[in-house]
């Protein structure tokens, strides 16, 4: 059995500047397919239990042509957001990014990767939920399908992240 997921890998979004937050070393080794559409593809195959999981990674390479790229997020099963790992993003900025992503991708599983982000997970969830309740989008605290992953200076983004994410996505299926 092979389960396929569309996963968007993107960066934080504070300006319209082209910000390359994803480097080759950030994702597992493997052939990358460049399209010159401001988008590259990479395939990751995982075997979890008896199931084989294909992650079809859409690497969005920064926020240039943001308007066009918004469509890429539609129908995504998962979104990996790489915040600037050299510094701590403010909680407001992180929540703004989540809200932006949810507009086009309301049901996907989001994985936030950043500096000291996991430690602030409760704060982020509380604040985001408070906003949602205020906007009348939810009545009470609910499962937001958001996960957090901390990155330290010397680590970078390692292969374990995608393994973790593949399991997360698989747990949401009926298969």
């Amino acid at each position, binding site marked *: 059995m092979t389960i396929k997921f569309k996963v968007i890998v993107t960066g934080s979004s504070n300006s319209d500047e082209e910000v390359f937050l994803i480097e080759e070393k950030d994702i597992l080794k493997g052939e990358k397919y460049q*399209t010159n559409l401001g988008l590259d593809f990479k395939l990751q195959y995982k075997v979890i239990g008896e199931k084989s999981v294909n992650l079809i990674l859409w690497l969005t390479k920064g926020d240039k042509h943001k308007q066009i790229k918004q469509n890429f997020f539609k129908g995504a099963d998962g979104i990996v957001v790489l915040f600037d790992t050299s510094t701590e993003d403010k909680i407001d900025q992180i929540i703004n990014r989540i809200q932006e992503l949810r507009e086009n991708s309301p049901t996907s599983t989001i994985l936030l990767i950043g500096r000291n982000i996991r430690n602030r997970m409760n704060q982020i969830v509380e604040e985001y939920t408070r906003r949602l309740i205020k906007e009348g989008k939810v009545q009470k605290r609910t499962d937001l399908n958001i996960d957090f992953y901390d990155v330290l200076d010397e680590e970078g983004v390692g292969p374990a992240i995608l393994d973790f994410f593949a399991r997360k996505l698989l747990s949401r299926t009926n298969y």
Partner: protein
Amino acid sequence: MVKLQGLYIILKLRGIPAFSMEFVHANLHPDLVSGFLTAISHFAKELRSDKQKDINLIKREDFVIMIEDGGKIFGALIADFDDRDARAILKRVLNLFEEEFDKDLDEFGINTLIFENFKDIAVKEFGSLLVNPFYFPKIINSDENIPMDPPIDQILCLIDGEKNLSEIAYEASIPVEEVCQAISLLESKNYVEMKVKIVLEDIFSPTEKATEAFSRETRYHSKIVDQFGDTGIDVLYALDGKRDLGEINDELQIAVNDLLKIIVYLLEEEFITWVELYPIIRGISPEQIMALTSDSVEQALAFTLLNMCDGTYPLSSISRKLELPRGEIRQFLKKFQNNVRWIEKKI
């Protein structure tokens, strides 16, 4: 006949291939093809304000990607040129797919195992484009799992290595397209194999691709000359959809084996296509037929042909039925002069 390379059925929003199959080995990764086509489609929609219109063709010199839209899915068919029949089948296949798997398409994550059985339907639907009705089927495996639904059982009974699909269709009174569909399915399951058999009575006509080969400056011209010298081009010129290979051979005076080698090459490269002739006899009275010849056997043949030549039956079928060579029938029909018309059907 359009040469199909691959079929991709892609979830519209997600860009994930729910189903894909290669008709020839192309080494294209379906996940990448699907993502790429979806991304281009998103771009196109943003670039033009009319969001209702989608990309329906991506074209390169040597191949095209035909794209047809469905509800939750879209289909991409890679082939050597844009073909109306292929598009119609693609559209039909998309409808069948959505009818069958509508609920599964909304699941979180896509389990490709669910869609694997659709291969049989796709192979069958595209059968009329995958199988040449002039090829001869041969049963190579007849185990008990062979599907025996009609019309497959009827077709299998008629496979004898001597009849091509067009003739089988005629004998079984089944449309040729339906026979090709059934054979395509059987071939994909390795129950039958298809053999090309060329005889001097066969008639061929140049395809659109051949028009380029006529010009000296083109790569197709060089390709043929490299293989067979100028003789290859002479043969291509001589194939006019009217004369059979025997007549052409008389004119060009080349060894039969060499001629057949050239024909096989031109067929494989899609420079030529088979032509089936459908004779029609009209406006001739029984008295006039009697006057055609004093030989009673020939008179009987003339009346038989009068009944058979109504444009419904191909010459190959008439030839088989009467157990007479096609060339002999064509020769005989010349006696009818202007009362005979020939419909040429390229296959």
